């Protein structure tokens, strides 16, 4: 019986991994992944979350806002009485914004190109959890606060450790890889695997994890592969279901993980003989899963904002903060 690949690899992103800088890790396990999965990711991101929608629709008409880490820009047009400018690290996601007529630019969340105090409000939806360290998460919040005016409000959403949704997280591990399964050209021939169960690094796994990270860091998707991928995606858009890809392997999960990072892998190749049916590649994104109270603690560390409202919605912790007088 083949070992069920749980569609994830444990996180190698611990302080004792000295060979990559935070920038390199975010480049490989966040930016590169979003560049490649952009069209597929975008096709699954169209429904605004109610808390975000309410935040935007209750803003006074004429307000100008920044959507920092806007992805495909799904929130930019929610309230036509606002003017919103989107930014994202991924130029492929920003291209989608551009095609939709949104005002958008490629920019780094830690170095926003805006004048200080310009915006009436800002949103940061599912972004801060992609930064590798607490310091970088605080810096990202500070940078958003910098570009918002005094009394301007910022809505922040981050993924929760306590989530009880479709992903079964290990509650003891906050730094995880979460796989993104690309659509396949053909329907899987085998039965569906167990649900994806992301989990983080356990001490006993660390050695294998480091080997996996080393192996994966030596390869990356090329431009051509990216283009091929886009074609595959457009052909299969209707069939997509997120995190619902058959992935079984006869190998140890950690060794299959070695090929399942930002480079495309073929998790079913060991059992899929038909060469006309390419397998679904899996990309692993880094997440820091937030514990209850952790987001508020980061905000208070900035010393630049007060928390106006906070809550839990759809597997996320969120809060609305207001920039303080300085």
């Amino acid at each position, binding site marked *: 019986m083949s070992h069920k690949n749980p569609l994830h690899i444990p996180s190698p992103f611990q302080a004792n991994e000295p060979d990559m800088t935070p*920038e390199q890790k975010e480049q490989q396990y966040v930016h590169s992944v979003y560049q490649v999965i952009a069209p597929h990711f975008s096709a699954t991101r169209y429904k605004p979350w109610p808390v975000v929608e309410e935040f935007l629709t209750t803003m*006074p*008409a*004429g*307000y*100008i806002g920044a959507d920092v880490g806007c992805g495909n820009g799904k929130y930019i047009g929610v309230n036509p*009485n*606002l*003017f919103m*400018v989107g*930014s994202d*690290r991924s*130029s492929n996601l*920003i*291209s989608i914004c*551009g095609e939709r007529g949104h*005002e*958008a*630019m*490629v*920019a*780094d969340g*830690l*170095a*926003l*190109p*805006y*004048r200080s105090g*310009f915006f*009436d409000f800002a949103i940061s939806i599912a972004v801060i959890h992609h930064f590798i360290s607490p310091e970088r998460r605080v810096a990202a919040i500070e940078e958003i606060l910098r570009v918002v005016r005094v009394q301007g409000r910022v809505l922040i959403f981050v993924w929760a450790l306590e989530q009880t949704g479709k992903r079964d997280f290990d509650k003891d591990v906050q730094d995880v890889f979460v796989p993104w399964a690309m659509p396949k050209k053909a329907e899987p021939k085998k039965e569906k695997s167990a649900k994806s169960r992301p989990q983080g690094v356990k001490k006993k796994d660390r050695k294998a994890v480091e080997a996996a990270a080393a192996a994966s860091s030596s390869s990356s998707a090329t431009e051509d592969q990216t283009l091929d991928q886009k074609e595959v995606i457009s052909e299969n858009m209707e069939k997509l279901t997120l995190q619902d890809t058959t992935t079984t392997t006869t190998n140890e999960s950690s060794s299959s993980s070695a090929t399942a990072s930002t480079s495309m892998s073929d998790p079913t190749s060991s059992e899929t003989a038909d060469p006309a049916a390419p397998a679904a590649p899996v990309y692993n994104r880094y997440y820091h899963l937030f514990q209850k109270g952790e987001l508020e603690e980061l905000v208070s560390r900035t010393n630049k904002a007060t928390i106006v409202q906070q809550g839990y919605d759809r597997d996320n912790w969120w809060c609305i903060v207001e920039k303080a007088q300085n």
Partner: protein
Amino acid sequence: MRLITHNMLQCHVKGCNANNFPLELQEVVLEQEEAELNEDFLRNMLGKIEYEALVATCLKLDINDLPAAMPADAAYNDEFLQILHRVILETHIKSGKMVCPNCQHIYAIRDGIPNMLLAEHEV
């Protein structure tokens, strides 16, 4: 990228903190695209726009419609708001570059999208 957005951008290279605004537009291709006028937005923008920089930037692009100084009654001056709307919201920069007046860093605009990413050592 609309001209309003140019007015909110500054150079953010590490250590480039003075004379880093406005970025100088070069080799730009412009396009006019009609948009609905939103008075609330224009009035809100009056307090945010760096008006002198806007006028100077426009003059370099041969856009001569804006008065040299913002009218005192700007918020309720329909004619002025109309012009402002056309300039900052309907004028798009499709391509070109933005050069920092201080450190000379060049930010490219392609397909209407500015790339404001910096190299690692510049952050």
